[in-house]
């Protein structure tokens, strides 16, 4: 067994266990120390991952893919997780047992990493389950607060159904094609598969199971509740990290099936169209900022699906998936960092005139929103640019047009909050969380702007990335 291939994941498990032991024995005032352990674990894992850059192969009997896509995605997952850890000590200061939070966070990140690396459908199921089970806990962490529990409950109910569908789908594919490993499946498709409705259903159900992690139609309903009710660090984590893993998992599944084999591409295109439209329409009149970010995050999943749709039709599709996921992660985390820094204030009226009391926070939120709209020179623009480029290259002009119309509509709800912050009457005082959340906010804002500077590096890295099986 080439144990070394899994060293980054092992580092995360070790850190999770250490954090748990620490949390069990450390006194209350030291609970935040578990954050340091988690951060150290992430640092080690990231270093080990960087050493894997450039490799392209399956390992562990074909169940685990080490390729450009999984390496970059896992690095993004680690960065995003570390970022959410920065927001946590301040947020959970009054929670006596919050050391365990970091353990759950690491395990959930591990689930996302496993989704990105899954090279076998059964492995994918396990990864989705790990990511889901930990996700429910993260969402319902404030167990005395109804909204948080409701978010966890809704997430759990949706998840139970979606996971059942996923397992059914995998079983169908396994039964019809006789294998669940991606290498074997890809060889089967290369040899030619008679189109069968049952096989289509199998793949469609599998995609729905992954779409749940992505927050895409038809399994999107949990996202706004989690964004609103979960603790803000969890909300930031759950709207970003599982999506990174799910995006790669989805891409890998879609790439298995040649464009002309099963008609999955039109199905995905419809999912993309519905997801972005539903997300944006629902976000339009939200008076709750966190809920609005949740719906906007649904819409963003729809944009992402555009790039997945044209996989195999456009040579730059994988680059677009990676670039868009990265830019979305930065933009969305920046938005949640501001919300966390402002102690989770969420009613849109509470943001009135914020620009006068908290100019930096207001500016950071504006940057985050501009990035989510895709206005230059933010990273979001580069992400969206590559997305439009690939979609049109792949021949889905109508999807690109719909996405453009959606983008214009989405500006309405983002700009409404920007307007409230800058043109409204300011409150007397605005409480903020702590210095660490302020640092995180600064870092995210700089990343939103600075992404454009390192764009060339990222594009080169993403463009030459590979997605197994080839």
């Amino acid at each position: 067994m080439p144990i070394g291939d899994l060293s980054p994941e092992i580092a995360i498990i070790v850190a999770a266990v250490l954090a748990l032991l620490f949390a069990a024995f450390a006194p209350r005032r030291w609970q935040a120390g578990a954050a340091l352990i988690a951060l150290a674990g992430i640092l080690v894992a990231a270093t080990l991952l960087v050493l894997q850059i450039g490799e392209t192969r399956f390992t562990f009997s074909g169940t685990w893919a080490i390729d450009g896509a999984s390496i970059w995605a896992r690095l993004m997952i680690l960065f995003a997780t570390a970022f959410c850890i920065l927001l946590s000590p301040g947020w959970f200061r009054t929670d006596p047992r919050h050391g365990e939070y970091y353990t759950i966070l690491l395990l959930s990140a591990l689930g996302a990493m496993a989704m990105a690396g899954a090279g076998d459908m059964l492995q994918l199921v396990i990864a989705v389950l790990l990511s889901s089970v930990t996700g429910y806990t993260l969402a319902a962490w404030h167990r005395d607060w109804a909204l948080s529990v409701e978010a966890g409950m809704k997430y759990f109910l949706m998840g139970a159904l979606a996971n059942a569908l996923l397992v059914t789908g995998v079983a169908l594919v396994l039964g019809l094609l006789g294998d669940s490993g991606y290498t074997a499946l890809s060889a089967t498709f290369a040899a030619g598969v008679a189109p069968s409705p049952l096989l289509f259903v199998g793949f469609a159900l599998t995609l729905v199971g992954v779409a749940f992690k992505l927050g895409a139609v038809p399994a999107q309903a949990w996202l706004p509740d989690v964004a609103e009710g979960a603790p803000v660090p969890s909300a930031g984590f759950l709207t970003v990290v599982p999506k990174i893993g799910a995006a790669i998992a989805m891409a890998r599944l879609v790439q298995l099936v040649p464009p002309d084999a099963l008609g999955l591409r039109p199905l995905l295109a419809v999912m993309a169209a519905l997801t972005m439209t539903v997300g944006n329409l629902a976000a339009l009149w939200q008076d709750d900022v966190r809920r609005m970010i949740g719906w906007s995050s649904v819409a963003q999943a729809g944009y992402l699906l555009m790039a997945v749709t044209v996989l195999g039709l456009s040579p730059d599709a994988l680059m677009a998936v990676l670039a868009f996921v990265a830019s979305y992660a930065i933009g969305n985390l920046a938005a949640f960092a501001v919300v966390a820094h402002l102690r989770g204030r969420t009613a849109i009226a509470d943001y009135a005139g914020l620009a006068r009391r908290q100019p930096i926070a207001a500016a950071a939120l504006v940057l985050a929103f501009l990035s989510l709209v895709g206005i230059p020179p933010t990273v979001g623009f580069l992400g969206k640019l590559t997305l439009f480029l690939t979609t049109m290259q792949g021949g889905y002009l109508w999807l690109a047009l719909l996405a453009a119309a959606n983008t214009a509509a989405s500006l309405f709800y983002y700009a409404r909050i920007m307007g409230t912050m800058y043109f409204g009457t300011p409150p007397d005082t605005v409480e903020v969380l702590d210095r660490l959340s302020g640092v995180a906010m600064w870092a995210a804002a700089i990343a939103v702007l600075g992404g454009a500077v390192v764009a060339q590096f990222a594009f080169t890295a993403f463009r030459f990335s590979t997605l197994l099986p080839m």
Partner: protein
Amino acid sequence: MLTLAILIPMLGALALVLSPGLGHEKARWLSIGASVLSFACLIIVWALFRIGEEAPAFQSVAEVPWIPSLGVAWRVGVDGMSLALSLMSGVLFIACIAWPMEHPDRPIAYYAWFLFLESVSLGLFLVLDLLLFYVFFDLSLVGMFFLIGRWGHDGAERAALKFFIYTLAGSLAILLAIIGLVLSVDPITFDMRTLIAAQPLAGMDLRGGLILLGFMVGFAVKTPLFPVHTWLPPAHVMAPGPVSAILAGVLLKMGTYGMVRIPLQMLRESFAAYAFPIALFALASILWGAVVALGQTNLKRRIAYTSVNHMGYTVLGIAAAGAMLAGAENARSLALTGAVVEMVAHGLITGALFLIAGGFWARSQTYDLDAFGGLAGVAPKLTVAAVIAAFASLGLPGLAGFVAEVQIFVGAFAVFPVIAAIGLLGILITAALFLRLLQQVFFGDLPTARKGFPDLSRREGAILSVLLFLVVLIGIYPRWLLDLIGSATRAIVGGS
């Protein structure tokens, strides 16, 4: 040098943001300084600019790689058209920054946004890279959104939001069109010069038509052309005077400049095929703008609709210039020269008119025409300035508007005689509406509420006299401007 012209205002804006303790006057002088420096850079470029048969199309070119794998780079350079437009923008920005604020609220942020807007506006005219063009196009919306929303009158928030969404929808159409255009060259490049030389869509009917449609829709929203002009009146009415002046004087030009630079230059064949419908939309804007302006009782709304009318002339000139691939070169280049002169003239004239309108608001908090009358007696200097600007706007010979409109119509008659003939009606109506405006506001009985109406202050007078001096200069001695612009338009019409 061009990079400096873009960078200096941006640095100025940054300096303002980083020094929150600065007083109002100091902030203003810093902004004026930054915009004058940036203008000086443009003057140097102008001094070095060569006109003639053998001179290259784009001069003062500089290039720094940014994202080579997508063919994107920081590319700047000017031809006669973009140089003329950026010089006009430079003048107008200095004027508007120097103009007193209507509500002296948060001056540092106000001037910082102004400098930011100046930087991106100049950037738009000076870059030779389509992606950067799009970047600046979008950023100008952000700057305008905050300027209108924050320093506008009651209800400005809604107007700003409408402006932002409307024009972003247009700019997304442009983005898709840009992508469609660059995907048709191999390897992908966003370099305008390469794309102009390559004419990548020649011979592709449907694709060329769709991409042209994307560009024209986007630019028509910005210009704005009938029927997508509806964001303009509320944005103008709610914005403070200097912001309106920039909106009309500089931002609207981005639409028409884009039309010339991209569809006309890069898609010559497709543009020629659809020039007639474009001319029809221009005609509709000319007439609609004029007729609706006539019915307005709000000073700013009336000027705003004349902008729709004037931009209609410009687009008519552009459509005439691109109507065919060969033949009638003289008439077509005349029409295009006229269109570009109209952009410059409209920038200066309407800029002055909106500044004057801002002065009315600052003095009386109303734009209602019925609330004024007989001001010639109490405010003679204001009257003189308004009369010159209004006459220039209606196209009186000897002033800048006339030079532009004569060339547009002479050129357009050779290509679209019927449309040009009907378009002349627009001039008639504009003349009527400006004369009635002057009569109502400056002559007749002075309402009692306006007894103490103050005349122009020394600062306002100086700013307006510079703008109007240029208007008169272009009117009686247009040679220098025509030579500069003509050097570009002849090359564009000739297809090089």
